[in-house]
Structure formats: C-alpha cells, structure tokens
C-alpha cells in the first residue's frame, strides 16, 4: 500500500508544477476519455469523474468511457472508484484524458479473510484487524502471536521467556476462567488452540476477528475471539522465486532483579531478632570465614542470578522457500529451522524446530479447482527446571555455589544451605545439574480442497478436509546424587500424548449483483469435526546403570530397578462437533451494508447438545452519499454488529460423584481401596457470549490517515466458575458466572512522504473494563489461595486481589495508640512500631475480615502501542512501542516468607526496611516481616504492574540492482533488529508480564538483538 500510494504522491508535485506553468483561461472545455484498470487493462465502469471543487461530474459507462464539460483548462479531474487509488489530472490543453486506475491496495479494497470465505475491507461491518507477513517477520521469535504484541488494539499478549513456550493471548479481556481463555486459531481452515508450531515466515496474514459479528460463524468455538491464519501461497504466472530469510541473534536478560547481597542479607537476618537466623550466619562465618571488608559478614557473596543465568543466549531462524506458478498452477514450498537457547546455564534449556510445508493450487478446468496444503513441524524442547528462578531469588547469598567442605556431596560438591542449618538445600545448581526434561513435539497439518463452479461466478461449491495430528513425547529424568545431606535416587518419567483432529467442511457460496446495485453474497454449509486425544504415562526409579549426561541411550524405564505404580496411567477423550452454518452479506450500491450469520452447533461434550448462534451487522458508507462532501474525508463508514458466541473450551464435567482409587499400608502390605469423591463439577453447557460492537472506519487526507474506532460490550453468561466449598478440601465448577468486558479501541495510522523520505506513524489504544455481573446467587466467589485471597465480587473485576489497605508504618507507640484501634485490639494483636497500619475501613476499632477491600486486578485497563517507520533511499527504519497499565501483580516472591522465613529477600526491600522512627513508611521492620500481622494479604503484596516498552527497533538496508565484482547480486535486505531492548516499570520483580498476575517464578523475558538477511534469487 505504501508503495502504490507513495508513487502516486510522488507525481503530485509534478502535476502542481505543471498546473502553475499553464496560462489562465476562462473557456469551458469538453474532455472525454476511457478509464482502464491497471490490474487487467480492462475498461472500468462506474468510475466517478468529477471536476474538483464542484458538483459537476458523472460516472463511466460499461466501456469505461466518460465525457464531461469542465469550466476551464485549469480544472482538475478527479477519478475515483472504490477499491482504486483516486487520481487527479489537470485538464490543461488536453481534450482526451485516458486514465489507468491502480487498484487500491490500501485496506479498503483489500480482501479480508472471514470465516468460510472472504470480504472486501470496505464491506465489513465488524471489527477485524489483519497483520501482514512483513509485520510478523519483523519480530525475532518462534511464536507468531508474539509478533502481534502492541499492534492490535484489544489484543493482549503476555510474553513467555522460556524457549518454545507460547505467549498468553487474550482478545478483549477475559470472558472465561478456564483454558487461559485462549482464542480459536484457524490455520487454513483447521482449528487449533495454539499456533506455537508455525514458523513465523510461513504466515501470509493473521486476522483477528475481535467482535461477535465477525467470529459468530465459528459458533461454539468463538467466544474467546477467533484468529485466522493463512499460510503463504504461490502466485499464478510468476517464475519461481527462491527466497532465503533468516537471522542470527542473541538474547540477554533484562531488568534482572536485585536481591539482597551478603551484607544486606546479614543485616536483615540479624535484625529479625531470630536466634536461629543468627545461628545460620554464625555457622557461615565459621565455615567460610569472615569477609575482609566487614568481619561480621561471611566471606561469601553469591550472586545467584549471575550464577545460573547466561549473559547471552543465541537464537536463530532460517527459512528457505520457493514460490511461483504457471497459468493454471501456483505453488509454495518451504523449509525452516529455528533454534533458541534458554537463559539457564549448565542445563539443557532450548527449543529447536524444523518445519516443512507445501501448498499447491491447481485449476483442473475453468470451473474446477483443487488444492492442498501440508505443514509438518518437528520440535524438540528441553525445559529447564523453573524452580531455578525461584531458588535463585530465595537462596541466601552467604551460601557458596561450591563448598569443598561438603565432602559427602557427589558428584559435585555444591554448597548446601542445610549444612548451615537452613531448612532447604537452596542451591539452584542442584536443579540445573541433576535433571533433564525433554519434550518432542510433532505436528502434522494437512488440508485438501476441491472447488466447483456450479454456475460460473455465481454459485460455487467447496469441499475441504482438514486434518491435524500431533504428538508430544516427554521424558523427565532425575539423576542420582548426594547433596551432602541426603542421597537421592535416579528416576525417570515418560509420557506420550497424541491427538488426532479432523474437520470436514462443505459449503456453497452464492454471489450475484442484481439490478446493478444489489450485491448479495450468501454462504451455506455443513461442518463435521472430531477431536480424539489419548495418552499414556509411566515412570520408575533407580536406573541401572546409573544415568549420566553421557549415557542418554540408557535413559529408559525398562532399565529402572523399581517401577512406580502411581506414575503409570493413561487417558483419552473423544469429542465430536456437527455444525450447520450460513452467512449473508448484502450491500446496496456499496453504501448500505447488511450482514448476518447463523450457526447451529452440536457436540457430545455437554449435556446441552445443540445451540444456535446468530449475528447481525449493518454498515453505512457515508462517503458514498451525494450529500456527503467533506473533501478531507475519502471514506467514512459507521458500522455495528451484535452476535452470540459459545465457548466449549471449558472442561466437560461428569456431573455426579466419582470414585478414586487409593492405596494404604495395612500391616506392611499395599492394599487398594476406593474413596468416594462426593463433590463434583456440574458444567452442563458451554459458555455463551453476547457482544455488541459499534465502530467507525475512516480514511482521510487522500488516504494518508486511516482511523478505526470501536466500542464493544461483551457479556459472558453460563461461565464456568469455581466454587470453594466449605469444610471440604474441594472446589467445584458450576455454569453460574456472568461477566462483562467492555472497552473502547482506537487505531490511527498516518503515512506520507516528504521528498525522498517516506514515513508512517501509527498508534493504537484499547481500554478494558472487566466486571462480574452475577455469580448465580452469591455476592462473591473466592479464588486463589487462602493466604493470597482473590475474590470475584459482583461489580468488580474477575478474581481481584482482596485484602487490607496499608496506610504506612507505625512509627512509635503513640502512633499506634492514636490510630483508632481499640486498646484491647492493639494488645491482642501485639502491634509494635515497625508494623503496618491497616486501614480500618468500617471504623470499628479492630482489623478483621470486614476491613478487606479490592486491591487490584491482573487485567490491564489500558493497553497501547505506537510505531513509526521511515524509508529513505535504501534504508528502512522502524520502531514499535507498547505498554499497558491499570493492572496489578501479586508479588508472591515477597509472600513466600509466610511459608519459609529464613530465605533471601529482594534488595529494594532489604535496603528500605523500617529500622526506627522515621526510617520507612513503606516497609515494615525486619522482625515485622515475619509477623502474621504484616503477612496478612494487603496491598504490600499487590503492586502496580504498569509497564512501557520499546518493543522493536529495526534498521534495514536494501540492495536492489547492485553489482558486486561485475555480477548482479540478487535482491538483498540486511536487517538489524533490537527486540524488547528496554522495558520500564516500577514492579519489584523480574518481569512485569505475568499472565495470571501471580509472580512466583517467571522466566525472564530477554531482549533479542539480531542480524537478519533476506535474499530473493
């Protein structure tokens, strides 16, 4: 789009110059000519030809011809037609002006993929955002969805740093509490829950169907939004083009959290007043000696994050593809390799993936087409123990990595905190060295179609069969070792999961224009879906021979001495879906748009078998109206839609009591028994969503500015909610929730050029208001753990953090006495200076459960992104920024002290603890940290999660028609990319991207710097 538009703009100054050089004249002039399409050279009927600044105009006839009387030879003719670039021509001395209009590849004429077909952007009444391959390829990642972060308003992406892990994706908030509320991904017609297996360079486009009216044709699968992915195709009549696209880069951890060093930790531990902690320090002093700088500090100062984390880890991706076609065939073939090393040292922690694909379309005859598409993905993921991040935070800095005195430890003499008296071994190197976790992930996706024109250009039948097969083969091995205190035996667990899904679609598409102005497209069809999955798992202990990294060929359960019966098992599921669907799109003269879909979905998952999903939409293109005459506005459409969606992504339930098998030791014999689980889930239906969307699309200033604005209100009913039962350690799920997500989305883009410099600036923002509407009776439902309560309260966000509001720190006794608590309460609770002031919300003089309030939600209320791109000569520079705010993170790392007191704390906390009157009004005293009073769930643990990030900076240099040593070199682009180089936030953690808002051990999100090469042979 940029190119075509800009080439047009290039001509403008020339035209103006030409206009000025002409003598003035007052005579009317007769002009005539033919308008042709640049696409196929054919005449274009219905093109509006108008004298600029007047109402004088007409449209071209069927042969593309026009004849117009203009006021004088200074008049400018404006040729406009929807879907083509508007052209202006100064009449001057010409009497015949033939014009060739180029198709407008701006979004307006662009074909947008919708469910079971496509529509032109200008005809769309719903909210759909499409991201093209160039934008996706900009981001060095294995995860295509990661590339959309900050680009689509209303789409929240929460990155995941672990190699091979998919980001969390949310479309317009959270309408379901299950399955991460993940959207449905439709890859060339096949349904997936994740597209983590796709190579980003193989994707032609990703369309996010945001509102119900767009996604309702996917019925019961559509409630969390639908994301359509088209893989790349070849082109007809194009010689084979071989393209290499690749990069090599490094990842480096960002915003590494500072934890207390030996000095800070020792001061803190001693200040707690705990004799046990003082004894640990004393033991460390004796064992490791005294620091030369401060003799009261042990002579060890381990920076655990530094010890476990690579300063950089490589990442690379290489894609080779061949695309082309003859007049009746087009093809695209590709092979790609991706490898990402993790940030953990000393352990296998990486992701490697090889993808193969081919896509072929063949015209058997003029009215019959067939095609197919195969995509094979083979991935191997080595998962580092996530507990390493946890332990690196908590391990005391006075413990060395290696401890030569720990002679009982083998094969490595790692330091063990138990030797100093601590409860756990703490050292994360045990977790890095003594296990190996591998997942082999194979996915196979194929689809074949045949398309028959029953009535050419009017009625078309399409049948498609989509098939996906995937298997995940995982093997987790623990090596035998001695940590100096305890001997650990080796063990191995394996699991094998396969899933086989198929979808068969058959549908008719009817497309006709009646009486020149009534355009009708109708689709009706049937789809059958089956999803079968099954798996087995098994394990054993004490491998013989003893496993090591050198004898991987011997890592088999068959070689274990003891089989762990509890580690054996299998499972399976079979789900079927049967769907009838139809779509009707009507427009009158491209001015009034009507749209509707209907889907009837049946399934075997729920007691409720069948459901109907409707949607209606309408649009009005004001710029097509005669009365509309604002020259700055090229295109203006108001649109609205309402629809119903379902979410069958909630786990099915049996709806009655079940029986669990248990084992008991009776006189040394292992005896099996049954336990009745009297509580049960009762989720007998899918979740239903109704959504209203109202939007405006506009193009202004000769399409330099594009505006898309949407307001939506999405209500989910029958949502599966988890109810905590009294007295029993059991939660049950019921279809009882009703939630609302409501928001406003705005996307603006401006592109233009100044001289040789082409540029574009864009921005988007989305607001989100998430609210519980009803819970089927109760006023609230508790979630989260008992210590870190989350509560869904009617009128408040889902699973909001819930607890006391702090009001500073008690500085002295009179501060305590005068705060408003009763003296009895003060005595009973043992409040001391250095403890938190909790707001007595109901002013009854005591702090109790009645004083708890909502402290925040994990869902951002504002997400935004902006970008700019500049091109000059052979250089392209682009930068993307994104951020979000209004959400909270539960700093669970700080909360861990409730369960284990003697571990390390973060440096910010250690440095700013209350140590006496006036020292801190934010953090309690060291001793206070360990008191139940201060450990109550409060906003001390709930922090602002807002962040702003420089998402991507990319500089490219293009080599076109260049010769090196006399040979013409192929079209080449060299690119330097900095991905996520800077993130700004106040949260006291590693990483402000925490999907569920609870930060216990998140993988750091690295910055990635890559050098890329793109060559077209």
């Amino acid at each position, binding site marked *: 789009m940029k190119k075509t538009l800009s080439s047009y703009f290039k001509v403008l100054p020339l035209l103006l110059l030409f206009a000025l050089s002409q003598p003035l004249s007052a005579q009317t002039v007769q002009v005539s000519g033919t308008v042709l399409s640049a696409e196929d050279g054919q005449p274009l009927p219905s093109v509006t030809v108008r004298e600029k600044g007047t109402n004088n105009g007409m449209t071209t006839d069927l042969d593309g011809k026009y004849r117009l009387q203009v006021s004088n030879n200074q008049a400018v003719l404006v040729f406009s037609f929807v879907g083509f670039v508007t052209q202006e021509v100064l009449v001057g001395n010409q009497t015949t002006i033939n014009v060739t209009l180029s198709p407008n590849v701006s979004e307006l004429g662009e074909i947008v993929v919708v469910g079971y077909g496509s529509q032109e952007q200008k005809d769309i009444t719903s909210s759909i955002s499409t991201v093209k391959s160039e934008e996706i390829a900009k981001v060095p990642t294995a995860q295509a969805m990661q590339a959309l972060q900050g680009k689509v308003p209303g789409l929240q992406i929460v990155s995941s740093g672990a190699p091979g892990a998919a980001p969390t994706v949310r479309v317009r908030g959270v309408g379901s509490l299950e399955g991460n509320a993940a959207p449905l991904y439709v890859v060339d017609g096949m349904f997936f829950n994740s597209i983590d297996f796709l190579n980003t360079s193989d994707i032609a486009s990703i369309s996010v169907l945001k509102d119900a009216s767009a996604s309702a044709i996917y019925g019961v699968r559509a409630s969390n939004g639908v994301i359509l992915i088209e893989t790349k195709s070849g082109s007809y009549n194009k010689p084979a083009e071989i393209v290499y696209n690749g990069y090599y880069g490094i990842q480096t951890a960002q915003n590494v959290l500072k934890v207390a060093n030996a000095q800070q930790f020792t001061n803190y531990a001693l200040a707690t007043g705990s004799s046990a902690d003082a004894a640990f320090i004393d033991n460390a002093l004796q064992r490791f000696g005294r620091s030369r700088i401060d003799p009261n500090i042990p002579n060890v100062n381990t920076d655990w994050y530094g010890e476990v984390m690579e300063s950089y880890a490589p990442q690379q991706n290489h894609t080779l593809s061949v695309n082309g076609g003859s007049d009746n065939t087009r093809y695209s073939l590709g092979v790609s390799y991706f490898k990402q090393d993790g940030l953990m040292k000393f352990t296998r922690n990486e992701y490697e993936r090889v993808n193969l694909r081919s896509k072929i379309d063949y015209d058997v005859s003029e009215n019959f087409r067939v095609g197919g598409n195969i995509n094979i993905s083979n991935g191997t993921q080595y998962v580092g123990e996530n507990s390493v991040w946890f332990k690196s935070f908590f391990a005391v800095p006075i413990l060395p990595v290696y401890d030569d005195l720990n002679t009982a430890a083998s094969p490595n003499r790692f330091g063990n905190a138990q030797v100093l008296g601590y409860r756990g071994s703490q050292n994360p190197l045990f977790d890095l060295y003594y296990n190996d976790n591998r997942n082999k992930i194979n996915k196979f996706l194929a689809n074949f179609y045949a398309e028959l024109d029953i009535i050419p250009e009017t009625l078309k039948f399409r049948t498609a069969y989509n098939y996906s097969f995937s298997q995940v083969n995982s093997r987790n091995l623990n090596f035998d070792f001695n940590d100096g205190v305890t001997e650990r035996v080796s063990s191995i667990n394996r699991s094998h999961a396969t899933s086989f899904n198929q979808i068969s679609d058959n549908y008719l598409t009817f497309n006709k224009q009646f009486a020149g102005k009534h355009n009708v497209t109708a689709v009706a069809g049937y789809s059958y879906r089956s999803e079968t999955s099954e798996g087995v798992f098994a394990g054993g202990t004490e491998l013989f021979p003893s496993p090591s990294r050198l004898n991987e060929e011997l890592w088999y359960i068959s070689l274990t001495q003891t089989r762990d019966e509890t580690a054996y098992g299998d499972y399976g599921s079979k789900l079927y879906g049967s769907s009838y669907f139809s779509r009707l799109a009507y427009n009158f003269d491209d001015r009034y748009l009507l749209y509707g879909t209907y889907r009837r979905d049946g399934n075997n998952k729920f007691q409720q078998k069948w459901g109907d999903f409707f949607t209606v939409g309408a649009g009005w293109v004001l710029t097509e109206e005669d009365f509309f005459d604002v020259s700055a506005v090229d295109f203006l459409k108001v649109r609205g839609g309402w629809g119903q969606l379902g979410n069958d992504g909630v786990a099915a339930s049996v709806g009655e009591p079940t029986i669990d098998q248990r084992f008991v030791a009776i006189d040394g014999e292992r005896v099996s028994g049954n336990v009745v689980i009297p509580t049960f889930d009762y989720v007998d239906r899918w979740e239903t969503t109704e959504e209203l969307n109202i939007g405006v699309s506009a193009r202004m200033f000769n399409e330099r500015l594009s505006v898309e604005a949407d307001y939506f209100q999405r209500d989910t009913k029958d949502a599966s909610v988890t109810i905590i039962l*009294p*007295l*029993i350690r059991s939660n049950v799920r019921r279809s009882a929730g009703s939630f609302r997500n409501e928001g406003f989305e705005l996307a603006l883009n401006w592109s233009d050029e100044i001289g040789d410099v082409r540029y574009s600036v864009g921005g988007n923002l989305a607001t989100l208001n998430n609210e519980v509407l009803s819970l089927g009776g109760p006023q609230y439902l508790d979630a989260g753990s008992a210590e870190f309560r989350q509560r869904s309260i009617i009128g408040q966000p889902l699973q909001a953090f819930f607890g006391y509001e702090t009001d500073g720190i008690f500085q002295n006794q009179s501060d305590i006495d005068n705060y408003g608590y009763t003296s009895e309460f003060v005595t009973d609770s043992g409040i001391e200076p250095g403890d938190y002031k909790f707001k007595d919300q109901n002013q009854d003089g005591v702090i109790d459960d009645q004083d708890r309030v909502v402290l925040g939600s994990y869902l951002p209320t504002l997400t935004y992104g902006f970008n700019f791109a500049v091109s000059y000569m052979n250089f392209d520079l682009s930068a993307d920024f994104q951020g979000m705010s209004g959400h909270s993170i539960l700093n669970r790392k700080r909360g861990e002290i409730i369960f284990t007191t003697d571990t390390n704390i973060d440096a910010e906390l250690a440095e700013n603890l209350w140590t006496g009157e006036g020292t801190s009004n934010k953090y309690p005293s060291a001793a206070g940290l360990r008191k139940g009073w201060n450990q109550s769930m409060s906003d001390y643990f709930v922090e602002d999660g807002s962040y702003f990030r420089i998402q991507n900076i990319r500089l490219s240099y293009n080599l076109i028609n260049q010769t090196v040593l006399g040979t013409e070199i192929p079209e080449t682009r060299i690119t330097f990319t900095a991905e996520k180089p800077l993130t700004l936030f106040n949260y006291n953690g590693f990483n402000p991207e925490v999907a569920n808002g609870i930060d216990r051990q998140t993988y750091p999100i690295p910055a990635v710097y890559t050098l890329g090469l793109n060559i077209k042979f």
Partner: protein
Amino acid sequence: MNKLQYFKSLFALSLTLVFATACDDSLDDPLEGQVLVEGTDYTLTENMPLLRIGAYDLLYDLQWETFPIISVRGDDVNPAGDQFPLTETDQFRYDRSFWMYNSTWLNFYDDIIKWHGAMEEIAKYQANAANPAEGDQYIAEIKVMIGWELLQLSRLWGDILIPTSSQTDDLYTTPVSSQQEVMQHISDLMDEAAPLLASIRPNQRTDIKGGITKYTALAVKAMANLEMKNYQGVADATGEIISSGAFELYNDYYELFKVPGKLSNESLLEFQYSDFGQSSGNAEYYLHQFFGPNNWTPAVAGSGAGWGFWEPSMKYIKFMLDRNETVRLETSVLFTREGIEMIQSDPNYTNLPAFVSNTTRDGDVIGRTDAQPNPRAKFSSGKHYLPSNQLTTGRVRYGENKNVLVIRYSEILLMHAEALVSGATSSAMSAVDAVNEVRGRAGLTDLATVTLDDVLNEKFAEFGLEWGIRFYDVVRNGRTTELNRDGRTFGTDDQYLPYPLAQLDLLTQLSDN
C-alpha cells in the same frame, strides 16, 4: 421452464453435496475414562470392602501441619522451626488467617465429608449383600474415625459444625454445635458403633490388621466423656477395655515407637505407613521429617535428616530428670551436645545420667558434631525418631516405614485413673493400680496412693510430645498456669483457636471465635 428445472436440480445437487457428510449420531457418545458412582453395580458386593480401605486411607493420610497444630500449645514442646503460625500459636497469639488453621480444619472435615460419602455408598451395597451385617461393621469403623476427628476439631475450636451427609449444600444452614453437644454426639456415635465391632485387639484382626475394633470405639468414647468431665462415662468405657484383658503394655518403651513396636498389643489406634520392604518406589509415608533433627550424623550414612521443627521443652526435660525417669526420657528426647550444655548450665543439673547423650543407643549422633550452634532444635522428639539402622536399605527419608501411634493402652489406664480420682467409680481396676502398671513398664517404683496431681504428672511423663494430650489435660483441669513459661501467658480466651478466615467467608453461622 427448462431453465427453472435445471436450477432446481442444480440446487438439489448442491445441497446434497453439502450435507452428504452430515453425521449427528456421534454426538451421543459418552465421555471417556470417568468412573461414575451412578454407574456402580451394587450387586457386586465384593467391591464394598474397597470403600472401607479407602476410609482408612483418609484416616492415615494426615497432612503434616495437623499434628503440630493439635499439640504445639502444650508445655511439653516448642516449635523450633521457622513456621510463624506455629511459633505464634505456641505463644497463644492466634491469627485467623494463619494458613495452618484453615489447612488443619480442612484436613479433618474433608475426611469427615468423604466418610459420609463412603457410608452412604456402603448402605447401597448392603441391600444386595449376602451378609448386610458386614456393611454395618464397615459403617461402624468409619463412625469411630469420624468420632476421633470430630474430637480433635472440637478440642481445637470448641463449638463446631457436625456434618450429617456427604452433601455440602446443607452445610450453609447447619447450626453450630456447642463443644458439649459435639462431645455428646461423639459419645453417642461410639455407642452406635461399639456393638457392631469385634471385641478384639486391633492387631488380632485378620481382615485389616491394626484396624478399628470395639475397644477403639470405647477409647474414643472415653476421650469425649473426659472432655465433658463425665468421669463416670470415662470410667465405664475404660473399665470395659481394661476388663477385656485384651491389652497389655509393650515391655520395651524405647522400641514401642519404632519398627519393632508396630501394631503391638498396646495399640488401640495406630496410623500405618510402610515402604513395603523395597529399597525405592511405592511408599506410604507420614512426614516425620518435620520432627527430625536438622543436623545429624546417622549411623547409616546418607540417611536424611529432618527439619528440626519439634523440640521437647526444657520444662519437660527437667521434669523428667526430677522424677529420675530413664527409658521414658531417653525415648522422648533426642539431645544435641549444645542442648546438654544448656541443661547443665543450671547448677542443679550438672550431673546427668549416661543416656543423656547426643548419641542414641542406635548410634545416631544428633545435632552438629563441631562446635557450632544448632540453629533450630536443641532437642528433638524421640517419639518421632526412627534410628537410621531401622531404615530399609536404600531408603533415606527420615522416619520412613514408621507408624504413628494414636491411642495406646497406657492412655486408657491413665484416663481410667483420672476419672476415678475425679469421683468416678469402677470395679475394673483401681486408680493406683492403673498408674502403677504404667510406672512399672517405665521402670519406676509403685505409688501407694494417687491423687489427681499424680495422675496428671504420670500422663505428662508418659505422653510427652504425643497428640497434645498434656495441653488438653492442663486446660481441662484448669491448670493453665502450667502453660505460663518463658514469657508465655495463657489468657482466659486462649483455649480455642479462631475460626479460619477462609471458613468464616463461606459459613456465615460461624461467628467470631
């Protein structure tokens, strides 16, 4: 006309193409892999005993925090670890949001609800059973389990809810029962159960060795009546157990708590765990690590240490030394070198018996061997100690394959004595004989007469570190000044824990406790 015909058939053809694959039959397929209670064939009565085994699994499966919450407040023990809820509770400072309170509450109630589920299912089998009395016995066993856990709940929280079915919906309106009502309910429940249970020792059972018998029911009845101060009820129940002649004290007090003492003739209720004699793999295990010393040099190298969270109090140790206790002190307390020095720092205790050593009779060295301080427990619980030389070869977890004794015959004898000195009468045995039988096994000389003080002291010595017996003795008899030590002050309202916040949020009838 022809054209219309053409379009009609074209349309029909198209629809046929579209719907040819339609297949709605598969939508009636059931979900895979779920065993439903509804699908149970109750004529297969051979499956009925499985429910009873499942009930024992619930009973034995006690999460680690339950035991310390029951017993931490006694003057026999200190929580040496870093668990704030335990150290605070030990100081009689309670916070309703302590996670251990909610967890302990749920550990018991969860069992009780599921036991009701099991009883309801057994009743359905009984209709088809050749011998329905078999089902009655199973239900009676489960009632004893319910009684014992309700007793623990009510001792901790006083007034509580008594669930009557497996359906949790009723709980929102179930009224709170006073402690007196709960104890009476337990006593009645035991009266229902006892006649249906065999009049034998648990270790005489052949179907479930170590399982519940009539005497277990009577023991729980006695405990409930003791809490109600219905001393005659205590004397009658304990008297019946004593008169049966089925039980005897295990002669070796030290080994009673170790592998040789498993399922002895002294045991009325015992939680069973095992490693099944295998070096690795399946094991049923109670988390004894909690009690174990966090530093030791085991006789069998590589055997795992504990957490150092459970420390006999100095008061208890000195109490035992003052009484010239031998095997009971040696069995109850593991000493570290540092701990011994602490005892000796008191000039009255400079000369200690030889068994007060940091090396146990099985050769495990407790605590650090260098001159460094032991960070947590200076003493550890010997009642929860399994010598490393009793571990199955290959097993390294502290206390693996060790059972947990719950109700011992000596407790029956001493409850009997307590009831008699408190005014009850019994022909089964006199108070002084009961006390002397316990003393005899401990190697102590007979007393001529006994007072309540003597009985309570004997219980202190005999049951130190076991199930909070000491704490509830002291509270019940109004001797809470015993609990005021090392800065602790037991207040008038400190007997019961506050209801857990998570439960208050769910059950509005629980007012502040």
